[in-house]
């Protein structure tokens, strides 16, 4: 009877260990709350209006463009949040990118384009979702693939926004990464303030 106590103690300990160590989702929510003094993002909304839209005679085309524009606008917002090293803003823009992609209607495109677009959308949504719930370095990793998806999307749908495709040779272990920007001037979303002006403009989209 005397050794009952240690045995019971051991059992308790065993139960505890099981509960604690069992593989629980250890989401490291080290949301570095970078209180970046509210990013001075120069939203160049003006540019959107004056871009003498090549007066298309096709109404459907115009509509398509404005739909992809919703994606583009949210993507750019996300990009600017990453430039400003702001995890929280990037996460909430990520969510907006997800809903913009979900709202995108591919019906007006040819069958072949639809297939390509659906592939892009599926992939992009996944990465934008991850951006919505990750820490900064992961957000940037997913942003890289998302940017590739964006470039391919815009290549099919076109956009009424004037965009530049920029290139950062360092990211991804020196394999390089692209992003889309509304500015010709380089503001690097992959490294933010660490290497703000690193990169080159590859082309106008």
């Amino acid at each position, binding site marked *: 009877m005397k050794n009952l106590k240690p045995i*019971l103690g051991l059992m*308790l300990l065993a139960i505890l260990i*099981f509960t604690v160590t069992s*593989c*629980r989702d250890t989401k490291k929510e080290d949301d570095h709350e970078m209180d970046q003094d509210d990013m001075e993002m120069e939203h160049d909304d003006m540019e959107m209006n004056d871009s003498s839209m090549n007066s298309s005679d096709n109404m459907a085309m115009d509509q398509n463009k404005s739909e992809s524009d919703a994606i583009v606008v949210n993507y750019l917002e996300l990009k600017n949040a990453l430039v400003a090293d702001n995890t929280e803003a990037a996460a909430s823009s990520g969510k907006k990118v997800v809903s913009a992609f979900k709202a995108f209607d591919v019906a007006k495109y040819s069958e072949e384009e639809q297939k390509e677009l659906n*592939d892009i959308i599926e992939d992009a949504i996944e990465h934008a979702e991850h951006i919505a719930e990750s820490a900064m370095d992961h957000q940037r990793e997913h942003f890289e693939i998302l940017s590739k998806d964006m470039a391919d999307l815009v290549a099919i749908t076109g956009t009424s926004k004037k965009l530049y495709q920029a290139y950062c040779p360092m990211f991804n272990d020196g394999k390089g990464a692209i992003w889309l920007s509304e500015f010709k001037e380089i503001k690097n979303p992959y490294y933010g303030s660490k290497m703000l002006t690193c990169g080159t403009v590859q082309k106008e989209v």
Partner: protein
Amino acid sequence: MIKGLKFLAIIALVALVVIQFVPAKRNQSDIVPASDFIASYNPPKEVESILRTSCYDCHSNNTNYPWYNKIQPVAMFLEDHIEHGKEEFNFNEFGEYSDRRKMSKLKSFISQVEQDEMPLDSYTLIHRSAKVSNAEKELVLTWVNQLQDSLRNQ
């Protein structure tokens, strides 16, 4: 005091026994679909065995269940993990992903393994054999990088 402890211990013990009756879904299947990653790309034996022991438990339709994975509450947590893991990357269904998704999945695979995010620490803590050494990591990453290049050039 001692009586109280004893009482608590008994309660805990009973709880542990009772919880064993919570049914656990088993993630098991004998079928290896044509879309399976290993079946499609034929990695070298060493790489295959690392993938199977360190990845497939949570990222395929077939989990190996050592005794401790069958015990509650471990089984419950594991079930959760497997569900989420398969959603992110299912080796058995790799062939069904679009080319674009294959590329981005491989990319995520590489970065997760490179940064020691995968396999999960909470998993390798119990499941020691799933732990990957640096040499094993190197081996897998080199091979996956090659695969990535060959898929890109297709």
